[in-house]
Structure formats: C-alpha cells, structure tokens
C-alpha cells in the first residue's frame, strides 16, 4: 500500500555551513580545513561524546548531520529501536580514509583507521549513538539519486519494515564534502513536508537564496510626456495624453481619440541621431532606454555584463504599412527598406546596438503583458548570475494595424477612457516606451546614489479561458497577483498601491476587479489605472507602468484614475482620483494582462 510519508526534518552540511530545515544554523567560513570546520560544528552542539574524536572525517560529517537532524523535536521514544532505520549513500565510499589507511600500512597498519574503510560505519555510528536497531544500508552512486531513495525508503515505511528512517547522502573526499540527511516519518509534524522526489531534490540542492534585483534607473516616453520629468509633471497637473489623431494617417482621425507621443518621427530620429526611416517603435524604444541608462549612471559599466530584454507587439508594422501602399497596387513596387526591420526582434537588435549592449539580448512578445514579462525575465537573468545589469521594458508605436484591429474587436472608447467606472466603454490606444535598469546587489552597491527600489515579486499565470477575453472569475489575474505576493513573501496588507492594468474595457476591469476582490477584500489599498493618462500602450504598457510604480515608491506618489465617476456595481472599492504626494509607499503591485490569457504581476518594494 502506498502511503503518505513526511520529511519531518532535514540537515545539510556543505560549504562550511550547516542548514537545518533550510535555515542556516551555523557557518564558519574562517575554518581553514574540513576537519577544523567539523570540529567547530561539534563544539556548537554542547555535548560530550567521546566517540566523536575517534571517528574519521566521513563519520564525523555524517554523525554531526544526524545529531542536527534529530535535534529539537524528534522524540525517538515514540518508536521501538528496531523500527528506526538508516539508509545512506555516497559517491566515493570511504576513499578518503582508505588513502589514509594505506599510508599507515608501511609503518604498521592502523586498526582504528581500517575500521573506517567501510562506508556503512557511518550508519553504524548513527545507530550506536541513538540506539537505532532497524535496517541500515549503504548504497554507492555517482550522484545523489532522489528517485531511488524516495522509492526505496518509502517502500520500507509502507511495508512496515521501518516506522521512521534517516536517509540521504554523506560524501567526503579531501576538501569536497556534503551531507544531506532527511528524517522520514509517517506522521506529519510541525512544518513537515511531503516525502517526494521533488521535495528531496529541492532540499538536497539547497540553492542559496537568489540575489535581490534593484532598479537603478528609469526611462519613459508617452503621450503625457517625452521623459520621466514631463510625465510626472502631467500626473501632477492631471493632464491626460489623449487627443485627436495627428501623426497616424488613418480614416479614424477625428473619430477615435488616441494617446500619441507628441514628437514626430523626424524629431525622435534627430534626438537619437538615427535614420528617420527607422520604425517608430524602435525610435520610442531607444529614447526611453537611453534615458533609463543615463539615469542609472552605473559606474564602470563597461566592465560589467549587460543585457537588453525588450518587448513589443507590433514591431515595424508602421513601416510595413507604408510599404504596402505601393506594393498593393503593383507587387513589383514598394520600398523594401521599409520592411527590413518589421519583425519584433529587429527593434531590440537595433536599440541594443545603439546602447552598446552586447552580453545578452532577447525580445518578448506576449501581447499586453509583454514588457512586464521582459522585466521579470531580466530579473531572473540577474538572480541566476547570467548578467549584472539588464535594461528591461518595452515599446510599441501606434499603427493602423492595431487601431483597426482593436476597432474590429469593438473595445475602443470613442471618448477618453474611464477605467474602473461603472459606465466605461472601452480603451484608448496609446504608444510609448518604458524601461527600467535592473541591477544586481553587487552593482547596486557601486551606485553614486541610492537605487530606486527592488523588484521583490513577480508571477506569470494563464487565465486559460479565452483568446481575447478574461474569465469572469479573473483566474489568471488572481493567480498572478497571488503568485507575486508569494514570491515577495508579502501579504495583501503589505501592498500600498496597485497600478491596475485597468484598460477601461468592460471585460478587463470586471475580471481584474473580481481578482482584486478575491485577493484583497475587505481591505483594499489605493489603486488606479494610469492608462487614463497614457492610453493602452500594449507591449509598452508593462514597462511604462513599471516606471510609474518605481517612481511611486521613490517619491511617495499615488496617481489619479482620471474621469472616474461611478463605482462599479459589482465592487465595494473604487480607484483613487486625486494625485497624492508624500505617501508612505513601501510596496507597489503593477498588473499587466494580455490576450492569450497571459497575466503578469510585478511587485516593487522600498529598500
């Protein structure tokens, strides 16, 4: 019968550090050698066990691990001695002592060393110390085999050969060593975890907590401003970026309001020293990314590994549309140079090249959550030590393609949008770019001024409901927000402001609101949709709103949700309508949800 067994305790000893149940218990980096470290661990145990000094290093290691494993809570009197077993494994058997023993042979072989030339003496020492008389075994394997150990020990418990078992890995050869012991019992105690291959592997790997990721710089361009300062000023004045269409050549001009960046392509190209033939997406991307890098002002950046993770959804569609005007009349016509950087990845390549970023580059395109995903992907690159710095975010230019597309979906508001209002009718499209400069802790410490904040949580979950509609339960949004909180180790009461996805469509705001209600009810933090200023900038929105979230922490801001009048009947909360300064803001959640059910939440936290 397969039953449920639990890991009721674990102990890892490696890298001169002792971990009990995942927490560092003792660390002695100053220890000069392995025996010195083991003796230092022994001294922390505050016991006098004469046998310890007779043991070889492998036995000392295994024995100490077992002492720590069984300390603090394990009541062996619950079991008969013959019901507790010890099943261990390692790679090099007793080779460490075998070598020592063989050296002793020339001067008269040492019996006290010879006895330790069997690996299973480790299980014997543990049995002697604890009076365990159940089955003991020692397996040799090249690597720790979590699958075998969980199956084998699980079966011993299931078949009542044993009622409790210490199992794991005790390896030591010269300077290399590792002990990983698990106490397995049939009864759940305290913070016990399930005895599964996955849990055992995770505990065994004992990866050090991934490093924090800090935000060192921000850059943004939207319809409400061409840089960070202009955007902040528009927030304060409550001036939205929406207006009649002026740059885009479209039949919808004068009928559908959009949030266009005020600069023309020529102005953008001039500002960046670029060819005006570039896609507007590239020009917007370069403008904001440059501002972010300049803002970060990272000392000696040329000596560091830098990555560029950029998102967009339309790529160079604006230029392809120009190409098609001639091409559609005669397929031998059309300027091919207009489509050379059509694909999304081209934007990233051109901008990375301009920024001089060579170490890592990739493009993410997951609809309206694209640049939120770019930021958290960038964070993972740093956390896993792939690079030191990542410029992450996204850009999208307004195009006929997107405007017509959203128009056919009938989710565009012919007036300025009213996110989270009972009478909202849809979204306004916008354009722009937003980037944050993510840096490792090591880089953060070299900055000439404090970093803005850190990225403490992130999650991506799928709504698994519909291609272009959100589920009534807000499943994906709920999972993303909850997952980000878990990642950050925060609870809902820690969140001081939510930058909502809040597109202003009936469907999004209903689903997102439901998810917020499920997670936060009855205590709602201040929240707003800054899309009421910027319009929905699609692939850029996650990056732009990340910049606003970072600034909210830095300056203690809460942004207003413009044009809100009537609370949605489904909810007991409503968005903030006033611009607030000097707020105590420690944690900001930023939501970005996209077609395809792709839902992401980021959490930024004060340092």
């Amino acid at each position, binding site marked *: 019968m397969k039953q449920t067994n639990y890991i009721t305790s674990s102990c890892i000893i490696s890298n001169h550090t002792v971990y009990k149940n995942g927490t560092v218990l003792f660390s002695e980096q100053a220890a000069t050698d392995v025996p010195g470290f083991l003796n230092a661990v022994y001294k922390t145990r505050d016991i006098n066990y004469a046998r310890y000094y007779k043991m070889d290093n492998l036995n000392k290691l295994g024995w100490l691990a077992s002492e720590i494993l069984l300390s603090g809570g394990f009541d062996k009197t619950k079991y008969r*001695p*013959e019901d507790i*077993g*010890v099943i261990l494994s390692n*790679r*090099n*058997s007793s*080779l460490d002592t*075998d*070598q020592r*023993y*063989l050296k002793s*042979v020339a001067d*008269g*072989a*040492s*019996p006290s060393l*010879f*006895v330790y*030339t*069997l*690996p*299973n*003496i480790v*299980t*014997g*020492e543990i*049995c*002697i110390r*604890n*009076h*365990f*008389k*159940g*089955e*003991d*075994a*020692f*397996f*040799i*394997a*090249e690597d720790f*085999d979590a699958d*075998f150990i969980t*199956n*084998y020990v699980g*079966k011993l418990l299931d078949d009542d*050969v044993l009622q409790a078992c210490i199992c794991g890995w005790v390896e030591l*050869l010269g300077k290399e060593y590792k002990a990983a012991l698990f106490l397995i019992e049939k009864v759940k105690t305290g913070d016990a975890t399930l005895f599964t291959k996955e849990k055992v592997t995770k505990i065994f790997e004992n990866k050090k907590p991934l490093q924090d990721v800090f935000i060192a710089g921000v850059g943004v361009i939207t319809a409400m401003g061409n840089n960070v300062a202009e955007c902040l000023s528009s927030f304060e004045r409550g001036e939205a970026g929406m207006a009649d269409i002026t740059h885009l050549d479209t039949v919808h001009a004068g009928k559908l309001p959009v949030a266009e960046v005020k600069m023309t392509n020529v102005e953008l190209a001039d500002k960046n020293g670029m060819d005006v033939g570039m896609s507007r997406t590239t020009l917007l991307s370069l403008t904001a990314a440059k501002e972010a890098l300049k803002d970060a002002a990272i000392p000696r950046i040329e000596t560091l590994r830098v990555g560029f993770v950029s998102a967009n959804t339309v790529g160079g569609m604006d230029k392809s549309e120009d190409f098609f005007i001639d091409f559609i009349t005669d397929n031998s016509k059309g300027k091919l140079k207009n489509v050379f950087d059509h694909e999304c990845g081209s934007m990233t390549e051109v901008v990375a090249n301009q920024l001089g970023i060579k170490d890592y580059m990739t493009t993410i395109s997951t609809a309206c959550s694209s640049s939120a995903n770019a930021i958290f992907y960038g964070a993972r690159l740093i956390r896993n030590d792939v690079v030191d710095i990542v410029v992450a975010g996204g850009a999208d230019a307004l195009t006929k393609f997107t405007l017509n597309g959203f128009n056919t979906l009938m989710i565009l508001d012919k007036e300025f949008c009213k996110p989270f209002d009972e009478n909202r009718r849809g979204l306004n499209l916008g354009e722009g770019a937003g980037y944050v400069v993510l840096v490792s802790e090591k880089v953060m410490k070299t900055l000439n001024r404090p970093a803005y904040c850190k990225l403490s949580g992130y999650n991506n979950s799928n709504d698994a409901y519909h291609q272009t509609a959100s589920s009534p339960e807000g499943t994906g949004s709920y999972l993303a927000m909850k997952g980000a909180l878990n990642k950050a180790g925060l609870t809902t009461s820690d969140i001081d402001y939510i930058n909502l996805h809040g597109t202003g469509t009936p469907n999004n705001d209903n689903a997102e609101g439901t998810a917020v209600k499920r997670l936060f009810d009855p205590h709602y933090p201040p929240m707003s949709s800054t899309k009421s200023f910027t319009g929905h900038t699609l692939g850029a929105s996650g990056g732009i709103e990340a910049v606003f979230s970072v600034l909210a922490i830095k300056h203690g801001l809460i942004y207003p949700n413009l044009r809100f009048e009537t609370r949605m009947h489904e909810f007991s909360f409503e968005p903030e309508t006033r611009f607030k300064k000097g707020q105590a803001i420690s944690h900001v959640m930023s939501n970005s949800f996209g077609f395809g059910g792709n839902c992401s939440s980021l959490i930024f936290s004060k340092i």
Partner: protein
Amino acid sequence: MADVFITADNILSPIGVTTADNFERLKAGKTGVRKHYNKLLADEPFYASLFDGNEAILKGNTHYTKFERLIIASITDALKQYPCNLAHRTALIICSTKGNISLLETGDNTPVLKQRISLSASAKLIADHFGFTSQPLVISNACISGLMGIITGKRLILSGEYDNVVITGADEISKFILSGFGSFQAISSGPCKPFDIGRDGITLGEGAATMILSAHQNSGDDVKVTGGAVSNDANHISAPSRTGEELKQAITKSLAEANLGNTDIDFISAHGTATVYNDEMEAKAITLANMRHIPLNSLKGYYGHTLGAAGLIESIIAIQSLKQNIMIPSLGFEETGTTDSLNICTELLSGHYQNCLKTASGFGGCNAAVIFSKK
C-alpha cells in the same frame, strides 16, 4: 505476496567456476584455503582462498580490472542459464566492500584514479558490458553486502518495477584488506575453524557470485526467496552485539515475512567467520531464536571470508543443498567453542529440505537474515 524465484546462479571461486563445480567439490571436501607466500600481499605467509592468477578469465589484456573481470565472468555464466532481456525491466545490483581498492596500492593517487576506483565507475562499465539499461545499484554494507543485495533485489521484484534482478558480488583480496584484518589481530594462524573451541580468527578468501531473481519461474525446481530482514546492533562499529538480540530480530522478521516458524527451517547457513566474538554472538542469536537444534554450517572453511561476495556464495550453496537435499559439513569444526552449543553439521547430511536460513553480520553492527524455500 508474489513469489520471487532464483532462476540462475553462479559461483566463481578458487574451488570452481560454476555453481555445479563448486557444489560437487564441496561434497568431496575440497577447500580453496591454503597457505600462501606472497610478499606482494603480506610480509608473512598466510592462509587464504585465492585465485592463483592463471585462471583464463583473469588473463587477457582488457581494460577491466580483476574485480570487474570476476564479476563479468560470473554474470556471463548466470545469464547463460537464464537469458533475460537486460534492456527491459531488469535491474543490476553489485555488492562489494572494497571493489577496485587494490588500484590505490600501485597507481598514482590522481583524480582519474579516484574516479576509476569508485564502485559506481565499475558498475557503469559492467552494466554497459552486458547492455543493462537501468541504472545499476551498488551496495557496500560490509560483510552483509551480498545478503543485502538479495533482500534489495527481492524488494525490486515485489515492487512490480522489475521482472528480473541480476545480483552480483565480488571482492579481491589485496594487501589493503589483508593488512587491515591483520591489524585487528583477526586473521587465523591456520585455516579458520568456525564455531570451534580453537578458533582464532578469519581466513580471507576471494570470489564472485551471481544470482538472478525473477518474478517468473525458469524451471520447476527453482528455489524462492521467501523472507529477508536487516538489523543493526547499535553497539560497536567493529565488535558484534553482546547478546545476539539484534541478529535474532532479523531472523524473526525474515521468518515472519516467509510466514514460517523456527521449526520449519531445515538447516542454517551461518556467517561463522571463526572470530571468537562473531561466532559467540551468532550462537546466542540462534539460541534466542530457538533454533540451536537445527543443523548449521559455516562455509568459511572452504571459501574463507569472501566479504562482499560471501552472502551470495553461501546462499547459492544453501540453495543447492535445498535442491539436492544434501547439506555440506562445516569444515574446521571439532569441538563446541561457544557458550550456547549449536548443532554443527560435521558430515555430509541428507534429508528432505524445504526451507533454510542464511545469516550474515558485519562491521558497523549490521546483521542480515534471508530465508530460501522450495515450493
């Protein structure tokens, strides 16, 4: 519970190269133990059961070590009797205490050598030689390694994950091992005398053995593994229990698993190393289990103590005894030398044998017991 059959076996020892060879020669009273003068192994002459080095299987220029060649030859013979599909639901278990440790005596102590010495390196070579596709298991549990292999193999079959388990074991007698037991003053001055009043230590031996356990019968007279258990003395790392209580526990548990009582056991193949303490402890355990009247032998007088292979070699002889209804006498025994007297078999016995008990104990305080039964 489902049955686990022993469908093939091999003993490769200085006495013979097949199970049949070995059993015939034991019946004839032939022993592998003799006096050796070999300065490469020990400064003084010593008694042991060793390959003389002229065996065909130990010759030839291959990249396998002696330890690996012994195992490969032993498995090859067993697979001839029961050719199972090694790429499908067939496990390999290798039992050894020291494997390739002799390489450390002669080779330069480099990382490459350390890798070559490791038992998992041997296991991989052996598995690849035959084409086993499952990850081989290596058991290094001192002198109970062989029995532990049988117990583990049986569990793998009963888990339903495997149809066949090839269990093999070997140890080579090297300077490392001889000097070690010598340092313990544990080596006998003459051929060892298990359970005898004049016993004064072990005689070492080398050999390999293989047993194939299967979920399905190979031939009508296949013997089954019906029980097996392991215990620890929790007393001393190199001296056995003072009471024998823990070995008795293992015996009791294995009888219970086999659904047998102590009176169902027709004979006992003991560990009987011929050290003063081991044999005394075993006698106590067998007495505690109410089995002292049952005919008992130790085969160490023929094979010496073959360490990681001992449990397998001695089990295979016990299985032959069940099949042929002939019990091999305990060589070297003349007069009771344990506090509790046992029924030591001193001449070829015949009877109607159904079930037998095999025991072993080792450094680290480990004990194992296995029950073999005819259907």
